[in-house]
């Protein structure tokens, strides 16, 4: 069974005057343990789609299933991990308390292989357990957020431009880290990005979105071997994949949008 199945999903926001169609007829599927990315220009509805999968909001049409169940039951069973663009840590809680927050809310004991201490070590923050978020750099804060998203062993990890606020050098380093963590945990991951190279580098599958209304215009499988490394960015296959994505993103109907 697919870890994630999105079927003809539409989303319309009601405004004071009229309404705006954010998503229309969006369908995509992701196999268990796969890494998928959604790429598209700003405002195309990528983040909205991710929030529908997480049951933060509900679609106005269509269906979403996570391992066969609707998002709401997955969320209430606490099988969804979410990493926001900002680290979104509680500033009054220590690193350790922030990582353990989902456990506290769910009133659960740590899972054996997902003990907060182990996760903190996994994301490379050993020694910072008692630090407050304001004492950490942006990259370190985002590592805490990733550890927090994994603490309940989620079926799916949703990442909303998780490194968008970081500089490019830190961002590439964090991407490598994220792939390592993803490989070690075996979770299904769906990430939103607007970086072409990031999409190709991370994914098994890339979904290209076009804006207003947001819809999937192309789907591209990336066959680069794993584990991925920086050296692969120089391979012709990598460059080819990027060029194919670029063609899709700047296809005639999309470019008409850009001019308008």
């Amino acid at each position: 069974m697919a870890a994630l199945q999105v079927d003809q999903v539409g989303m319309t926001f009601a405004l004071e005057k009229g309404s705006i169609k954010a998503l229309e007829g969006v369908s995509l599927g992701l196999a268990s343990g796969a890494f998928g990315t959604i790429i598209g220009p700003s405002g195309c509805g990528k983040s909205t789609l991710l929030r529908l999968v997480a049951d933060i909001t509900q679609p106005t049409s269509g269906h979403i299933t996570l391992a066969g169940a609707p998002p709401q039951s997955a969320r209430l069973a606490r099988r969804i991990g979410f990493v926001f663009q900002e680290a979104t840590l509680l500033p009054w809680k220590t690193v350790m308390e922030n990582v353990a927050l989902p456990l506290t809310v769910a009133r659960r004991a740590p899972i054996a292989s997902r003990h907060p201490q182990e996760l903190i070590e996994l994301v490379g923050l050993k020694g910072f357990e008692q630090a407050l978020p304001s004492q950490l750099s942006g990259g370190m804060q985002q590592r805490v957020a990733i550890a927090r998203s994994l603490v309940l062993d989620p079926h799916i990890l949703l990442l909303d431009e998780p490194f968008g606020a970081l500089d490019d050098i830190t961002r590439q380093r964090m991407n490598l880290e994220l792939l390592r963590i993803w490989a070690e945990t075996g979770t299904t991951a769906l990430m939103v990005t607007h970086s072409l190279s990031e999409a190709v580098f991370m994914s098994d599958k890339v979904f290209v979105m076009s804006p207003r209304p947001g819809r999937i215009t192309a789907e591209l499988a990336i066959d680069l071997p794993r584990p991925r490394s920086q050296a692969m960015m120089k391979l012709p296959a990598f460059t080819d994949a990027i060029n194919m994505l670029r063609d899709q993103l700047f296809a005639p109907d999309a470019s008409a949008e850009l001019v308008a």
Partner: protein
Amino acid sequence: MSLSHSLPMPAHTGLRRQLARLSQHLLPLGLAAAVLGMLELAAGAGLLPISVPAPSAVAQAFVRDHAMLWPHLAPTLQAIAGGFALALAVATVLAVLATLARTTRDPIYNAAIVVQAMPLIALTPILIIWLGNGLAPRIVVTALASFFPILVGLLQGLRACERGMDELFTVMAASRWQRLRMLLLPNALPFAFSGLKVAAASAVLGAIVSEWTGATQGVGTMMAYAMFSFKIEQVWMAVILCVLLAVAAYGLVHALERRFVRWEAVAVLNAGSASLREGGPRRVLHVAAWSIACMALLLAGWSGLIHAFSIPPYLLPSPQETFATFQATPQIFASNLGFTLRTAGLGLGACVLSALLVAGLFIQLPALERTLMPFVIAVRSAPMVAIAPLITLSFGRNLLSGVIVVWMACFFPMLVNAVRGFQGVRSTHLELMRVNAASAWQTFAMLRFPFAIPHLFTGIRVAAPKAVLAAMLSEWLTGARGLGHLILESSAMMELPTLWAAILLSVATGLAVFWLTDACERKVQK
């Protein structure tokens, strides 16, 4: 607070920078010492008016008479502590209710505005009739005085949650209660403390003013007696005590804040009330409609109470009797209202002009601002109206005293808003003017002033109800004609219908002034 430069400062040499930093601390202290020294010298030379004793004389009075201070201090402290705690408890319950049940938010906020707009001294005589002439009415007045900033801080803080945080708790499937306890309440703390700091001074003011009527002991009583018996050193002692109480209350809140808010938090209380409400431009009408509904409900409840419990008129006259009083002598009420509004209006006008002037000077002369702004901030937390007796002593029992008291009550919120407005210009705008070689005056007229206008109206909205209250307070002290005097007189003579009518009129005036200034602010900010 570095309010001076939006443009980057040129790099100083190490020594000069150190000197600059040193002067930042020393200048305000030096100025204070210089003023005290000059007062002392002037007193020695016999140059001071009779209402201003030498600083050393006041210090000696403290040493000599400290034994008589304690019996006065105790009830005032009780009123402040009790009133503050009561206000905090009620505000917390209401703010949590407004957060959990969205639909209660607007009614709660609008009701709070009605409470805020009431000139609280008008309520003291009624509360004494109802609750007895003990500590209870003083606690209630103190609570009413400090309630609004506490509620605003809590409401704003409970709302200040970032969207991502909110979504995180949704993804974690947190319960409502968990969201409140683990996210909203701790997140609101910095804002709550900002509100509490503002409320600290208001609480002191409330306690002091409540003691001006009927109390036999308290710092406020001591202040009033000393003034009427012309014991100038005692007036000064009471005023200094009052300021010290405010500073101590502020300091206590500040210490608690440092204890409980250890993370880096930025909580700027929004002076604009508009942001706290759900709706848009139709809100003014809405608030008006709400207040009218409140009034109608109040009148219905008022009549109902009297009939249900056959309450004697000396506790609560019926609405009909009260309106009959209005009709019997409308000219008395109209002329007293006119006097109060004249004092308030003149004081507010003087205050706006002087605040603009001083804020403009601060912008042109950053050194002046660095020297004086610490004073402004320190004095802002002191209850300025407490200085009213000194003003009355210095300028006599006349209109001028009243105008100065109003000016003092309004000047600081007005100045802070004006400075904030002038400095609200973005640095890129300033750089644009610089690139275009604009003169200082052009920058001011074309950039700073237009940017400051919304802030000025915010200042006026904050200051105008204070102006009405201050005008009434000054009438209590000077005996000048006006609504405050009418309340005091009718309360002393036990002319209850007149007392009630005057109280109703002053509450209605406070609300009207609030609506008017609130409407202006919205119009400008649109």
